[in-house]
């Protein structure tokens, strides 16, 4: 067991999969010589060469579209988008092509491709660099969407994504790269579509993922000091969505708060809350609360940005409201 950063975990997963399978290759802006915008592919260019670590022109639609093309031939491309905000330039390929080709053509071809994209706010990068639009992508059947909150999950999920025969959107959070965590030695595969209890508790079920796992953990500590024990369920995958641990936990606590970084409207919290109401209404003892970003494009100025993002104090407040 080694304690490594999220960046190292993601990097290790890519490295190991490229060593294991010559069909895996990386394409994206600044992934080669520069080593990636968040330095995830540092050293890859020298080791694997320019052919397998390909700097592309600035053209996101072509990056994703070309990954689709390459995947159709049986290669396993890992396309990197500098930020998930630029995925909107590639939306047609993600939504109309990647998510649908397998179904539309009755399973004649598979699309073993991964799109790595960096999401999230908190780095003062302004409204079109800082979004958390995860729910948008999770809306589409045919696409798998994962967003890990710990280094171990990042490593295991990315390896699973690369080996998957379906297109996977792998969302990394811009402020989690330095986060450290224990990662088991040796082969590590975390199955896509499995939620996980990250903290045991009896009073309230907190459902969250990605960066908000860290925020929720912090809130949980503060609450514990006051004698309130929350149970935290980390979704890890948004599609397919595994509700079992959420429902099991809720049946124990009878109260739930959902914490997401994106906007509340039509978001992850909306989905989880409705599923709880649909599948476990009789167990719910208090209205479910959602903690999310203020409904504005995320501003640049630090004060404004922090004001708009959800934080531990918001989580603490919401938990107390459902108790």
């Amino acid at each position: 067991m080694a304690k490594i950063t999220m960046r190292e975990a993601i990097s290790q997963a890519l490295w190991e999969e490229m060593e294991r399978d010559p069909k895996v290759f990386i394409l994206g802006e600044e992934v080669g010589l520069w080593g990636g915008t968040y330095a995830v592919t540092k050293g890859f260019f020298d080791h694997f060469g320019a052919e397998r670590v390909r700097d592309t022109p600035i053209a996101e639609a072509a990056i994703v579209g070309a990954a689709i093309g390459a995947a159709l031939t049986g290669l396993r491309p890992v396309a990197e988008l500098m930020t998930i905000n630029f995925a909107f330039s590639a939306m047609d390929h993600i939504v109309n092509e990647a998510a649908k080709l397998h179904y539309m053509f009755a399973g004649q071809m598979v699309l073993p491709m991964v799109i790595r994209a960096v999401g999230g706010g908190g780095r003062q990068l302004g409204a079109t660099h800082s979004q958390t639009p995860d729910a948008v992508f999770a809306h589409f059947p045919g696409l798998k969407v994962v967003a890990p909150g710990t280094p171990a999950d990042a490593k295991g999920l990315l390896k699973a994504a690369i080996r998957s025969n379906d297109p996977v959107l792998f969302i990394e959070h811009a402020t989690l790269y330095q986060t450290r965590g224990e990662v088991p030695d040796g082969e590590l595969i975390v199955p896509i579509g499995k939620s996980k209890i990250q903290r045991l508790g009896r009073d309230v079920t907190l459902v969250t993922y990605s960066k908000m796992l860290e925020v929720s953990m912090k809130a949980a500590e503060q609450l514990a000091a006051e004698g309130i024990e929350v149970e935290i369920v980390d979704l890890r995958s948004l599609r397919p969505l595994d509700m079992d641990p959420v429902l099991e936990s809720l049946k124990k606590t009878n109260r739930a708060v959902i914490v997401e970084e994106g906007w509340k409207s039509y978001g992850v919290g909306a989905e989880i809350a409705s599923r709880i109401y649909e599948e476990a209404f009789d167990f719910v003892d208090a209205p479910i609360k959602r903690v999310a970003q203020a409904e504005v494009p995320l501003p640049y100025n630090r004060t404004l940005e922090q004001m708009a993002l959800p934080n531990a104090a918001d989580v603490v407040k919401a938990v107390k409201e459902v108790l």
Partner: protein
Amino acid sequence: MDPSPDQKLDMYRLMLLARRLDERAWVLHRQGKIAFHISGIGHEAAQVGAAFAIRRGSDWVTPYYRDLALMLALGMTPAEFLMGLMGKRDEPNSGGRQMPSHWSLRRANAVSHSAPVATQSVHAAGIGLAIKLRGDDKVVLTTIGEGSTSQGEWYEAVNWAAVHRLPVIFIVQNNQYAISVRAEKQMAVQSAADKACGLGLPGIMVDGTDVFAVHRAVKDAVDNARAGNGATVIETRMYRITPHSSDDDDRTYRSREEVEENKRRDPLLLARARLQEEGLLSESQYDEMDTQIKASIEEAVKQAEAAPYPAGEEALHPVYAEEVRHA
């Protein structure tokens, strides 16, 4: 028509102002007083040359993040720029909402700048279309980096402008790098101007370190556009003297020798030598100008530092038009 001696001096003064202000921004960043800076050092000639070729304040401009000198030429003040760097409440681009150097100065008809590159090109085509529909006697100047001309939107915008003969001037500031990626990894042609011929409009290459050459080329294109003869693509070639931004360390992908070599073609040196040759700017006049500019920047820094930050609640507005009283 060539610029008058006074205009030439004005052009040079703006270039020097942009340079000194840009250098000051790097210092503010090193001092930890600002979070981010993206520099236009090396781009001043192209931007000032282009600005002087349009009717500033009346013609439309959709700029990109390196356009500090262009924005100053359009009337943005140093204090306004500095407040933008600091995310102050009254900075005119965005009131602290957008990243620095993501310009929007309504009073100068400079609009539309998002972080995803090449969006401004398409907006310029739309403005060009509107100018035609409204029957205005105006043109649009839009700028972009060479790397970003790889984006589909750029081709789409240029194609539109060509098909509809729109009054748009597409300036490509080819500084030979897109972050770490060299221009030859973005395009197989020698110049972004070469892309124009495939789309059916003129493509011009001009030395982007020569402010007067750029001015002449853009002026011709503007005259053409205003006369109803449609759009032009102009590539201005220069070198990005600084790292991509304050977040970049360019030592990982280019040698110091290469950078030093290219500094010899610094547009400010070239313009100053020209003015000196023409007897417009003596050594002592230059010193005086520089001293004055530096003093005015220090004054602007004080002003910007004293300006208030937005209050937290201001983050919540104005998402919709109804939240603001519009003219």
